[in-house]
Each structure stands twice: as C-alpha cells, then as structure tokens.
C-alpha cells in the first residue's frame, strides 16, 4: 500500500493525535514545574523564566515546535471531529452515552476547545507581551522582571477565575487523553493499568496544581 494512503488512514491520524498530545503533556509538565517554583522562590522563578525567555535553542527551535504542536493537535482534532460527525448523519432520538463511557472521553472536543480558548488568552497575556517587550519596544534585558509580571497577571479575580475554569477542563481533557494516547500507539500490556492510574494522577495533580498557583498569587496580593 502506498505510504501516502497509510498516512491518511484513520489509525495514522489517531497515532498523530496521540503523539502530539504526549508532546504537549511533556511541555505541560515542564511548565508546571517552573510555575510551581514561583510559589517557593521568586529568584529561582526569575532565573528559570529568564533562561526560557532568552535561550536561543528554546526561543527559536523549541518554541516554534511547541506552537506547531498545539496547532497540529487542534487541526487534527477538528478534522477527526468532522469526519466522526459525518459517520452518523442521522442522530439517535434517544442516545444514552453516559451508560457506557465517561463524560471526559465523550467530550474531548468541548474540553479541547475551552483549553484552546484559554491558550489564546494565555498567549495574549504572556507570549504577545513578551514579544512586544523584546522585539517591538526593544527593552533592555531585565532578568528579574518575571515574578512581578506573573503577580500582576493574577491581580484580576476575573482572569484568575477564567484560568481556574480552563484548568478544570484541562483536567478532564487529560483524564481521558493521557491513557488514550498510549492505547492509540498500541501500548497494551501488564503495565497498562498502572499507566492509566498515572494518567489519572497527572490529570488531577497538574491542573489542580496550576489552580493552586493561580490562587496563591491572587490571594497573596490582597
């Protein structure tokens, strides 16, 4: 069979979704670690943020790769969603989805779109302003500004609330997505059940950790 046909197959798309998802999970872990540092040490957080902001490998290689990863995961998710909707043109009058599958697994498109909207806000909040700071206004290098900027963002209760809601949806997305990724790439053995539990733990610890960080900085300023 032609390679192009294989790449267009439903399984190739499924594997692509899984691998891009796992890549985003690895990024999320790093992001979580750095943010958690901000709770304990402003200096360390500044040092890490400065490294991430000015290291050329991260800025000019990893950052574009990350953006491409997000865009790819989103576009492929939408392609699959549209294909799946086409696969049942006449809906059931009575469909009891809750009888056999979790809400999280049935509504990845909803949790995913909420997380995407959040990423838009997050880009506007941090990434766009960082680009403006560095390349439009061409400000001098200020390695200790990051902790203050972070605090400033979490002053608003509305923004902090939006962040928390998005993290709840991220938790649901990860609840299904983490274990599902391994199933998609064909991982099924005696460790599968353990890995599923690791996925559930990740889906709770990381998003709720982010919620804690947001609330910590918000209430620290009141």
């Amino acid at each position, binding site marked *: *069979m032609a*390679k192009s*046909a*294989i790449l267009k*197959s*439903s*399984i*190739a*798309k*499924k*594997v692509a979704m899984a691998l891009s998802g796992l890549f985003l999970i690895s990024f999320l872990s790093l992001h979580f670690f750095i943010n958690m540092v901000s709770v304990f040490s402003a200096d360390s957080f500044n040092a890490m943020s400065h490294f991430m902001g000015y290291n050329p490998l991260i800025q000019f290689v990893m950052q574009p790769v990350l953006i491409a990863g997000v865009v790819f995961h989103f576009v492929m998710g939408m392609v*699959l969603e549209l*294909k*799946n909707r*086409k*696969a*049942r*043109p*006449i*809906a*059931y*009058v*009575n*469909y*009891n*989805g809750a*009888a*056999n*599958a*979790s809400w999280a*697994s*049935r509504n*990845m498109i909803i949790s995913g779109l909420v997380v995407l909207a959040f990423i838009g806000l997050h880009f506007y909040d941090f990434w766009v302003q960082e680009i403006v700071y560095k390349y439009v206004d061409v400000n001098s290098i200020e390695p200790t500004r990051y902790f203050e900027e972070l605090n400033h963002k979490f002053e608003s209760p509305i923004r902090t609330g939006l962040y928390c809601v998005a993290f709840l949806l991220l938790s649901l997305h990860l609840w*299904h997505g983490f*274990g*599902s990724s391994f*199933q*998609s*790439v*064909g*991982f*099924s053995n005696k460790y*599968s059940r353990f890995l599923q539990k690791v996925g559930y733990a990740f889906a709770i610890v990381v998003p709720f950790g982010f919620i804690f960080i947001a609330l910590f900085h918000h209430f620290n300023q009141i």
Partner: protein
Amino acid sequence: MKLTLQIWRQKDAKAAGKIVEYPLDGIEGDMSFLEMLDVLNEQLINKGDEPVSFDHDCREGICGTCSLFINGEAHGPDRGIPTCQLHMRMFKDGDTIFIEPFRAAAFPVIKDLVVDRSAFDRIQHAGGFVSVNTSGNPVDANTIPIPKHDADRAFDAATCIGCGACVATCKNSSAMLFVAAKVSQYALLPQGRVEAADRVLNMVKQMDAEGFGNCTNTGACEVECPKGISLENIARMNREYLSASMKG
C-alpha cells in the same frame, strides 16, 4: 406488563423515517425482547397494518443477526448479550421503550429497524486468505505449539459475532473494535502471521473506505459488545498496523 413503544418506522431505504408510538399490553417478564416485538407484530398484522421489520435469526445469541438500539443503548440495557437474549424482566410496567435501528453512515437503514451491515463483510473480504499447506501431507494444527494465553486471546477475539453493536454505540460510529477482533484472531496465531501485514493494511483501508468514524478510545464499544471483545484488541491492531506500515 403495559408498555409504550416508540419505534422507528421507515418504509424503505429512501423514505424519511419517524418515531411511531405503539401501546402494548400483556407482556410478561419471561418473554424475550424479540418475542415482545412478535406480539406487537401479530397485533399489527391482525389489524391489517404493516408489521415492524427487524433482523433476527438464531435467537440463541450466537449468530450476530439481531441488532436494535434500545433506550439509547445497543442491544438494550443488559450487558454481554445481543438483543435476542434481552428479556422483558429488564423493564417494568409502564415503561416507555425507544427502539431504533443501529445508526451509522456505513449501516444504511433498509426498512424500519433493519440495517445493511454488509460493510462488515467487505472488510472481512479485504482481509484476504490464510495460507494453508496443500501439499498432501498437511501438518495437523494441534501439533503447532501455541502459548496458552495467545490461544485464549485469539479465541476471545474470534467470539466476535459481527453484530455491529460497537459501531452503533460508538459516538463516532467507529468499527475499530470489530476490525481489531478480526485482525487479532489471526495475528495471534502462527498460521495467521503469514499474511498478517497485508491483512491489517487492507482491512483498515476498507474500514476507512466504508465511511466509519475514527476511534477516540471512549471504551463504549467494549461495554456494549455482547461478546465482551476487549479494547486491548484495538491496541493490538494499532501495533500491527504501525509495524505493517514500516514494512510497507
């Protein structure tokens, strides 16, 4: 038992269907679901009305012919059974029961509750043949050593009766559990390894061509499958497909 049935009626493949309400009395808990429909049909025929068409054959839970989407679930609210093994004791007096055909673009409705599931046949045909020794001195299959757990898994996969409940219940109308079972039943055995790569590539290609949706691992198929075909078969098919793709 007195019931209100809400049944999908559709004259033929081209007609627009709709839900029609039928009150039904005198149903006993020991009747099977299909016997309950038989009672309804007798009444409809006696009145000169068109009986409700539905698929059935062995009524012993082994042929995979019966279907029906009952109260929002493939094969109804019970587990590990096709519709013919569903009994009316699962319902109570006064219940309203929705009965719809299995829904998928790849399973077009032929009439009322009867759908065309020949897409499954074409997927199986695409899987091709299994090489056998025709030299005149064939080796008895029992002399080929096969690990017990592989034999068990192959047998479990082979219990798939191809009813289509996996497609019907999947929110994406994906056929991956069915195809994975058919891939696995051969892939796990030495006789099936000979054409394993071609088999998985061709079956998945046909599955996609039939217009089934894509699996998102919700696990609904495994829950509704009358034979309890496991999701591990889908993981195996994904592995088989990836490894076959590498070989080209």
